[in-house]
């Protein structure tokens, strides 16, 4: 029987190794797996590379991991969102490396990895500093930049509902990076508001098929 449900957030993040690349879903504070990020803090993994759109807020979740010195590098499009003091302090102290990637290129590089492709040419960032050192090619009269797949060892995801197969639905714009990160990680871990019976999700409206998901833990009021 396929059963991806785990009982606790501790079980959910078990086995994440030092040095792992962790895909952290969310846009601002929406659709972020804060419970899993807290659990990862308690689990103790360090030297992490974080892939996220932003760089954490306040002193919880991703920001807390940064404040505790667990993060070696952040790959993101926009670190300056909300109270990003944790990131800013580490950035100024040069204890953390920043790889700045355009938002669409981050999501496309993860999809590229998920899709088993070796890279793609994108017009985004051509003729800019963010293309420095990257291969370029003129295609149909337009300069393109070669972008490589971006894969995670782990993805920490937030969804609304899951069933025991790991099929997921989201709420509104909390969907954001979650589906593409679910596809792009070796180990995809999801915190959900609610776990429902297999068969109760509409087969036409499953946003992430369970085949991309490894562990599901309920953290909502219905958990």
């Amino acid at each position, binding site marked *: 029987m396929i059963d991806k449900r785990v009982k606790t957030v501790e079980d959910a993040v078990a086995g994440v190794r030092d040095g792992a690349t962790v895909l952290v879903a969310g846009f*601002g*504070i929406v*659709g972020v797996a804060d419970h899993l990020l807290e659990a990862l803090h308690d689990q103790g993994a360090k030297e992490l590379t974080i892939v996220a759109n932003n760089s954490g807020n306040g002193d919880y979740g991703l920001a807390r991991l940064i404040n505790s010195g667990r993060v070696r590098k952040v790959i993101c499009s926009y670190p300056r969102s909300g109270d990003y003091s944790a990131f800013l302090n580490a950035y100024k102290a040069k204890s953390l490396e920043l790889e700045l990637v355009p938002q669409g290129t981050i*999501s496309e590089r993860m999809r590229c990895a998920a899709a088993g492709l070796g890279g793609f040419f994108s017009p985004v960032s051509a003729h800019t500093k963010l293309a420095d050192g990257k291969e370029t090619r003129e295609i149909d009269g337009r300069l393109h930049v070669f972008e490589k797949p971006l894969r995670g060892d782990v993805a920490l995801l937030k969804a609304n509902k899951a069933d025991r197969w790991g099929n997921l639905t989201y709420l509104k*714009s909390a969907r954001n990076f979650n589906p593409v990160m679910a596809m792009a990680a070796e180990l995809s871990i999801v915190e959900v508001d609610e776990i429902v019976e297999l068969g109760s999700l509409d087969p036409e409206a499953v946003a992430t098929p369970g085949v991309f998901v490894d562990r599901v833990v309920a953290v909502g009021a219905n958990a």
Partner: protein
Amino acid sequence: MTSPAYTRLSRDQMAWRAAQDLPDGCFVNLGIGIPTLAASYVPGDREVIFHSENGVIGLGPKPKPGEEDPNITDAGKNLSTLITGGCYVHHADAFLMIRGRHLDVSLLGAFEVSETGDLANWTTEDPAFPPGVGGAMDLAVGAREIRVLMAHTHKSGSPRILKRCSLPLTAPGVVKRIYTDLAVIDVTPKGLVVLEMIPGMTLELLQTMTEPKLHLADSWQALAPPQAKAA
């Protein structure tokens, strides 16, 4: 020193002006800042679909008090709503729409624009702050038409419309129209063409606040948005 014989447009007036150029049925992304305000000023007889990079297709106005939902925000992370007919997509699809020329218009803020339409809006290279690019480069190369909304000059009075941008580029040669607090200017193969100026402004005076040469359109008009905010 006498006060100038003109009054610069407010941010809302600039946004109002840009909104008037959004045709019925178009699909538009609004950048953070002044562009976001444009959503309120689309003429009521037009249906415009606003795209938000976080996967909201059909972004609506701010929620009414008591109807806030933490699961829906705009690109600036402000609480928002979905209009009737809107839907949600994931990030890779939201940026497929941007990069794949599915957006009719992208209204963006900018630090600088060059006379050939180069756009600089992602970093001021302030060493005290980490850079952030967000979706700016995706929008700049992806939307069918890029229009910029920005103050005509820096607070110091120095021009932001330049022969060449001094700041790192977001993308070269992409800006087609510039809405400032003084004028509406098109970037054309023949150079910058002033379409509209605010009352009291002259081409000579505007030129002193603009680095590259300006050409006045034969059919130029007064730029006079209403004072009041949209209802």
